[in-house]
């Protein structure tokens, strides 16, 4: 920040007051969640506000970064630590840039800037991680995975990798890494507190050969990794065919996994102890999120029963496998934003024989402006889906075309440009024993939130 700032003589306290007033005004007037702007204003007044406030968190800061699973992983951690009676603060609205973290700190401080919290749990955008790490000491960084995502914003995957690495190395943060993603497992060598992963999958049928996976090379000899088993994307049990390098030994892992329509069960192994977990979240990707959360909880000495309880009683966050009942119909909302996550979500929806499906695609900055990613996503599984599929959003015709080329009969592709029409139509089609799955991109999710509100209901982000 330039020192020409006319407000620079004002104190942190002033910034906090401005932030708090702005947050209240935005929320009171219904202009939105106010999860970024208050922090932005406050940072203008006091550029060192984030380090000032974050230093007041007694235990420390846990950051969750990586392409997919940031929100749910940090939500699961919050659920476990809450169950363990820790006092936490958490950017649960998903505002995960510098301004969002600042806003979260302001929200959780009193008017004088006092914060009563044991742990700060922050999901942090990959590109924002180095910037935030330079301003505050992050104790633990959990890295979930690394997939192609919004390349119009991030540039290349290698760039994202470097950003996360810088973010970790700046404070020499301790890390918890997804061992199954070879790029993540090789991110750093020192200060790794735990590697988590999946022991094996008994049902291999779920892996498709045409699935896009990121390339991964052995950091010792440069050879491309080979796999004993692939779980999805490039996540799996891998080894180097040229040298001794292989997937690290798993400190915390899942085995005996059964992924059902909208939930899953698995054995969670921590230090030789086995917990049987029933996770009320769909898809294999959520098993990974649970593993990440269990790992950090274990490191913070939370006992096994509390971990189980925290995982199983998790209530979902805004648009992340969030379930609501609207006009007596069950709706499950799962944000989609990149090929890896979307492929898993589509697969999960197909797992549900009673699924009705709406896919809503926008191309705003927050969605990724290039919709090429739709063609890297495995929509082909929907060709076997017998019900109509509704598409909506600014790019509804791109999506409709994608479904056509994925082998969905054209008569089953219903285009509703307006998301509200799509929602109402979808609700009408859905029976009492069915679930309406809505797969929106980010700004479609925000639109959906407003529409749901106008119908007299609410999503958790509201």
């Amino acid at each position: 920040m330039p020192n020409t700032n006319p407000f620079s003589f004002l104190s942190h306290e002033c910034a906090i007051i401005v932030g708090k007033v702005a947050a209240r005004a935005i929320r009171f007037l219904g202009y939105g969640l106010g999860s970024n702007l208050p922090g932005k204003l406050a940072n203008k007044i006091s550029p060192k506000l984030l380090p000032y406030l974050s230093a007041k968190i007694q235990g420390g800061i846990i950051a969750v970064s990586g392409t997919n699973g940031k929100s749910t992983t940090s939500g699961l951690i919050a659920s476990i630590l809450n169950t363990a009676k820790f006092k936490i603060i958490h950017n649960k609205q998903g505002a995960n840039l510098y301004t969002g973290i600042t806003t979260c700190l302001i929200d959780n401080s009193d008017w004088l800037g006092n914060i009563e919290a044991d742990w700060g749990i922050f999901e942090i955008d990959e590109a924002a991680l180095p910037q935030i790490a330079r301003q505050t000491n992050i104790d633990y960084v959990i890295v979930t995975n690394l997939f192609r995502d919004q390349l119009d914003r991030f540039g290349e995957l290698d760039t994202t990798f470097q950003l996360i690495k810088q973010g970790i190395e700046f404070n020499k943060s301790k890390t918890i890494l997804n061992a199954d993603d070879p790029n993540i497992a090789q991110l750093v060598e020192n200060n790794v507190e735990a590697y988590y992963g999946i022991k094996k999958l008994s049902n291999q049928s779920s892996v498709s050969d045409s699935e896009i996976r990121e390339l991964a090379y052995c950091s010792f000899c440069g050879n491309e990794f080979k796999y004993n088993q692939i779980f999805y994307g490039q996540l799996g049990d891998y080894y180097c065919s040229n040298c001794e390098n292989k997937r690290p030994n798993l400190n915390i892992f899942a085995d005996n996994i059964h992924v059902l329509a909208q939930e899953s069960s698995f054995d969670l192994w921590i230090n030789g102890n086995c917990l049987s977990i029933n996770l009320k979240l769909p898809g294999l990707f959520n098993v990974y999120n649970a593993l990440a959360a269990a790992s950090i909880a274990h490191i913070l000495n939370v006992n096994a029963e509390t971990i189980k309880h925290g995982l199983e009683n998790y209530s979902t966050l805004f648009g992340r496998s969030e379930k609501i009942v609207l006009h007596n119909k069950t709706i499950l909302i799962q944000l989609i934003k990149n090929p890896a996550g979307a492929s898993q979500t589509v697969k999960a929806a197909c797992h549900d024989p009673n699924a009705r499906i709406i896919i809503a695609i926008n191309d705003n900055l927050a969605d990724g402006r290039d919709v090429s990613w739709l063609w890297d996503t495995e929509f082909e599984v929907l060709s076997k889906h017998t019900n109509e599929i509704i598409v909506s959003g600014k790019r509804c015709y791109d999506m409709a075309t994608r479904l056509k080329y994925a082998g969905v009969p054209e008569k089953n592709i219903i285009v509703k440009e307006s998301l509200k029409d799509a929602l109402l139509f979808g609700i009408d089609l859905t029976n009492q024993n069915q679930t309406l799955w809505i797969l929106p991109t980010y700004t479609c999710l925000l639109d959906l939130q407003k529409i749901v509100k106008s119908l007299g209901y609410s999503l958790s982000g509201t």
Partner: protein
Amino acid sequence: MNNDLKTGTTNLRIAHLYAHFLNIYGDKGNIIALVKRANWRNIDVEVVAIDLNQKLDYNYFDIFFVGGGQDKQQQIIASDLKSHGHGLKEAIASGAVILSVCGGYQLLGHYYRPHQGADLEGISLIDAFTVAGNKRMIGNVVIERENGLQLVGFENHSGKTYLGKDVKALGKVITGNGNNGEDKLEGVCQAIGSGFVYGTYLHGSLLPKNPHLTDEIIRCALRRRFGEINLTKLDDKLETLAHDKALHFQA
């Protein structure tokens, strides 16, 4: 359904070069579009992924496709592609079609000159070269071809490509940057012998939303072994809607 073709009488052979390395940005969509639009006309399609150090039967394939990758992958494949340069040139001269997008397109020229380090040598299939630019050109693109038809897509590149004066561009830029953001040209569409070289920066993916181009490429590629074939008209309602909507997107 089809007057001209019976199942099994015609087939299309596609070599997807470095599918494993170059697939960063919906390249798969182009293959899907070629396969589907051929299949819908009872034309069988065989797609073979060609890896590094793999022998390539230049005479066998009708279409060669090269997508885009990250810098590291581009470097890995560049010298291997170079080894196919001569073979590809002959294949195209005798009627095959090559379609290349983004990174693959750059390597069809003489070289790619990065900010630092040595030039990445291309295969000089077309008289063109690419230099690394300072700003990334990102956004929606509309171009108009010589025949008046428009193509829509999305560009995301910092390399600036310049065509030699005898080389034909794919189209003129209406919206967006195109080859270099300077000369209002986008891509390349150049006849070599009886074959064609197509190159472009357009993702989107390119072919699904531009079915007229997809069909042009299929027709062109079939000519090599089957002569002139009338492709049955397909119902392109959805594709056309997607295309027409995209004409009005902001860059």
